[in-house]
């Protein structure tokens, strides 16, 4: 190994260290038998996890996050699927404008999106709660879902759909028998990533939840009291493991059936 490679190795290690060491403190302290996050470690305990498990409000917040996440990811993936199909398949008037329009929530600061929805929602006379959060999350997740689906659909051979029409299937039959099964890995990947984005989302929830806290809101609330910190650390550790699992699953699914050859080319590049 020459000097240049050593430098790169050090750089790489520093990079990953910077990225993951802080995250690793969460699980470490979540098993530490103390109320404060400080070294030296006081001893091993699972008490914080037991405490976490016993919090009724946490259960409520978890359930709220799951509801919001499922509804937002299903709606945004559905919208994204139709949009991705249109962008990948057809040339049409206003294509760039519509694309930009859908990608917008991806680019504008979330806090502005949150404030805008808040103002409109309140002025329309509706109550804050999980419904506006779900709407906000749907808006926010759609561009992510669409990017994943466009990548999937762009490599798709559209003569397969023509073949289906030619063999006597109508447009719906073609969608369910040909397009949908072939898009499916992309659809599931989009659903999972949208769910995770919604599940982790804080700013929109902060402005729009009212009294129905989502999980990130619950954590935020608990952080104000020092003695409640440890069980939030336990919760954080669980969320990290769960999120990592879902994201890996989504990436794996995104590549399923995309062909080994393509992957080989990607490796070479």
């Amino acid at each position, binding site marked *: 190994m020459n000097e240049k490679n050593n430098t790169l190795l050090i750089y790489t290690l520093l990079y990953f260290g910077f990225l993951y060491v802080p995250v690793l403190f969460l699980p470490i302290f979540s098993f530490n038998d103390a109320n404060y996050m400080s070294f030296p470690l006081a001893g091993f305990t699972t008490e914080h996890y037991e405490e976490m498990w016993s919090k009724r409000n946490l259960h409520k917040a978890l359930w709220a996050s799951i509801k919001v996440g499922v509804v937002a990811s299903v709606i945004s993936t559905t919208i994204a699927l139709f949009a991705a199909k249109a962008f990948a398949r057809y040339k049409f008037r206003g294509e760039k404008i519509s694309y930009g329009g859908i990608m917008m929530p991806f680019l504008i600061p979330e806090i502005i999106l949150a404030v805008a929805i808040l103002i409109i929602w309140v002025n329309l006379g509706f109550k804050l709660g999980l419904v506006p959060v779900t709407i906000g999350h749907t808006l926010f997740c759609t561009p992510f879902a669409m990017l994943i689906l466009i990548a999937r659909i762009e490599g798709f051979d559209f*003569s397969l759909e023509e*073949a289906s*029409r*030619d*063999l*006597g299937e109508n447009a719906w039959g073609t969608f369910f028998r040909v397009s949908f*099964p*072939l898009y499916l890995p992309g659809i599931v990947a989009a659903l999972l990533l949208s769910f995770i984005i919604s599940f982790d989302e804080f700013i929109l929830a902060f402005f729009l939840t009212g009294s129905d806290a989502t999980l990130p809101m619950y954590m935020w609330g608990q952080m104000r009291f020092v003695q409640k910190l440890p069980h939030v650390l336990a919760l954080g550790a669980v969320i990290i493991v769960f999120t990592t699992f879902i994201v890996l699953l989504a990436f794996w699914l995104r590549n399923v059936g995309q062909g080994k050859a393509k992957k080989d080319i990607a490796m070479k590049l």
Partner: protein
Amino acid sequence: MNNSFIQINNISKHFADVKAVDDVSFEIKEGEFFSLLGPSGCGKTTLLRLLAGFEYPTSGNLLIDGTDITALPPDKRPTNMVFQNYAIFPHLNVEKNIQFGLRKLGLSNDEIGKRVKEVLSLVKLEGYEERFSNQLSGGQRQRVALARALVRQPKVLLLDEPLGALDKKLRDEMQLELRTLQKNIGITFVFVTHDQQEAISMSDRVAVMNDGKIQQLSAPNELYKNPKNIFVSDFIGETNFLKAETKSSDGEFINVSIEKLGVFKIKNNLNIATNSSDVVCSVRPESMMISKVKSDWDICLDAKISQTSYLGEMTRFYVETKGIEQLITVSSQHFDNQSFENNKCFISISLEDISLLNKK
């Protein structure tokens, strides 16, 4: 036999300001092997897609077996298509691919099983039912595509350059097989290709297309022997063009002055105008004779061989003649590149092998 089984009436298809198909009318007979031949961008594939229902015409109408299908979607038409890339469903095995189009036909399970079996034996793919597309060779995929279309027993089978992706040997085999298959089952085939050899060897009739228009529609031998215009003459086989001018008419003959060669009486099949310089004479390489000694043919020229290419079954000579600018191509089965001393030879042409064509 229905002579106007498929009727194409004044069909035009415009994409923005491009006239892909420009006011085309013709008929295809029942049970015919019909080819649409032309260079890429000539409109042949668009015409096929109009027949399949993937495109709708800008104007004109289409009839199959007396029924107007102009406005019908692809799934309501009595046609099936073999796609250029075969479009085998990758998530279904061979058997499911073939069954795909039978679901809507309201057949019993027994009937479906029977039909799939029959068509698999027709395309010689028995035993491949469980395979997926990525486990098949190019030739096998082509057979699956064919089987999947034929199992629906369409009135018309549309084929979009189906042999283009195969290597030469397999392509020759499939040409013969397709032709035999078509004669046996008697379904009307409309075959799109840019390969003139493929079109003339397989078809009952060929429509040569260019610029969205039919240039000539006739039997393959007619296309070759009596091309109607310079495009067809150039596109089908190889030919030599000689500069010419028409003079006075003489019944069914016309006096033509061919550059540097003199004035000759040539049959005027295409009613070409007299005293026109907008004409050209075409002579096929194999209709000329190359020889070591002078002949008594209508035209015999002193010539010098400048290039030869040996092709096995024949040899192609590129020769210089006095006064004619371009090299003339002559092919011969008797002589090869070793035959001539000092590259000196004679080129003979018979007047009946010269076709007179309009430049436009």
